[in-house]
């Protein structure tokens, strides 16, 4: 058995390649027309995250999808994050450690409108003790140029209710609307290119009720970021098959928003088929961002907008990892490990951290 990418290389199976490129928010599988009624799969995975900032997260996911007798595939997933943290964010707010669970439930229906056109509709709920979120996503994808290209358009809205632990009186809202346009194009027998543009606008409370600005001269105040934020992201990706057993996947993402953050993300993954059933993937990723216009390491006077969110600071990270996959007739297994280094250049409370992520998963197909 060849690598999935190679099996899927004929233009007739471009949908699988396009699914690999993850251009469509809800299109995790092939076009509906390419799936037989009654087929489907179920997946389960467990991932563990730990970092040097005293935070651990255990993530459990079950996911399944099935093709109905009518041209519709339905998928659903459930996810639980078990978080325990005593990071500098936590202890600087005079809290020794917190532990909490986040539960996410989601479902997506993919409708085959015609042989080359699919529509998706998805709903996701996420809840934890101080945050509730509901998201609705709609998308349409259409194959073009004799199935050598696929165009994807998607829109989504999310309503978040932001709370504060133990506090029934504190409730803020954050609404997010977004759209995405993507194109996947076969450039040759062994080359697929994708490009995607995403825009989103958020309005509402975007700070944390747990973070406080500690200024010079004993000034202090709750965090106060702007209430509106517009984000743009442009992603380009190339998948190249080399020989019969190697795939190189390279991508670059440019992100910027009207808070002044500009970031670059580059990632390269190399997958090699070791045997008919066994594959090995090596991956490296680099990220760099410049801080938000109103972010400062320290404030020496009250400003209109203030934050101590390190995600809005200037930082870079580098991540690398390895994944081993086994593909059987009905079962797939995979295990992976990643490690990363973060460097915060203007965040006084934490100059860096090291992260480790390990995960294992299994998929059963029928």
């Amino acid at each position, binding site marked *: 058995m060849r690598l999935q990418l190679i099996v899927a290389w004929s233009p007739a199976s471009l949908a699988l390649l396009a699914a690999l490129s993850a251009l469509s928010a809800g299109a995790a599988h092939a076009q509906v027309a390419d799936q037989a009624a009654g087929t489907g799969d179920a997946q389960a995975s467990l991932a563990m995250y730990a970092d040097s900032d005293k935070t651990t997260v255990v993530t459990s996911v079950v996911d399944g999808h099935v093709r109905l007798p009518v041209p519709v595939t339905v998928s659903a997933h459930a996810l639980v994050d078990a978080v325990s943290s005593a990071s500098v964010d936590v202890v600087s707010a005079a809290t020794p450690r917190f532990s909490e669970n986040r539960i996410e439930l989601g479902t997506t229906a993919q409708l085959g409108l015609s042989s080359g056109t699919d529509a998706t509709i998805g709903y996701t709920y996420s809840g934890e003790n101080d945050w509730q979120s509901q998201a609705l996503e709609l998308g349409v994808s259409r194959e073009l140029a004799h199935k050598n290209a696929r165009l994807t358009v998607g829109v989504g809205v999310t309503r978040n209710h932001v709370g504060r632990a133990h506090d029934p009186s*504190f409730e803020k809202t954050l609404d997010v609307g977004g759209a995405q346009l993507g194109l996947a194009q076969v450039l040759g027998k062994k080359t697929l290119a994708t490009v995607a543009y995403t825009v989103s606008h958020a309005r509402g409370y975007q700070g944390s009720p747990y973070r406080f*600005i500690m*200024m010079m001269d004993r*000034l202090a*105040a709750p965090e106060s970021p702007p209430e509106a934020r517009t984000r*743009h992201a442009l992603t380009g990706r190339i998948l190249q098959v080399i020989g019969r057993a190697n795939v190189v996947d390279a991508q670059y993402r440019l992100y*910027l928003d009207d808070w002044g953050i500009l970031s670059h993300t580059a990632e390269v993954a190399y997958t090699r088929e070791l045997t008919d059933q066994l594959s090995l993937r090596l991956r490296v990723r680099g990220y760099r961002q*410049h801080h938000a216009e109103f972010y400062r390491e320290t404030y020496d006077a009250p400003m209109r907008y203030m934050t101590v969110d390190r995600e809005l600071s200037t930082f870079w990270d580098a991540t690398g990892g390895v994944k081993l996959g086994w593909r059987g007739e009905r079962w797939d297994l995979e295990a992976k490990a990643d490690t990363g280094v973060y460097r915060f250049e203007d965040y006084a409370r934490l100059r860096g951290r090291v992260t480790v992520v390990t995960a294992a998963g299994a998929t059963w197909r029928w």
Partner: protein
Amino acid sequence: MVIRMLLVVVVAGCVTNLDAPAPPVALDRAYFRCDVQPVLAARCAFPACHGSARRPLAIYAPGRERYQVGWDRPTEGVTPYELDANFAIASGFATTTATGEPWLLAKPLATRAGGYYHRGADLYGGDDVFLTKDDPGYQLLAGWIAGASAPAGCTPITEVGP
């Protein structure tokens, strides 16, 4: 830097005014000294509460946390430096920028009266600093934030609530 700013302005829109100073504070210093500081000192500044530099809202008060006041004079009146520091730090929690409500009022008010959760209420018996908005201390803080003023030569109050 130029390229970055150009990209941000062209693609993301104008990024101006995000790094502007906060509007000038209109809170009255004399009213703070005479009507707010006594409330904070009597009802917030216990060493295990806000009479500690570990707290974002850290309050200096006689007999409690002091700044460069000798150990043999702990009950000496609050110094001008301490008063300025308390005024500045309380002012930061009197804004409505962050969440719409001044935290200086919302945190010490009992949740059943509309206040925010306050861990001090859990630690010390279940009742918050102000059980209702009718508490004299709450009224003084609210008056200060609403713009109340006092003459420069005012005398600090002694009635700060239960």
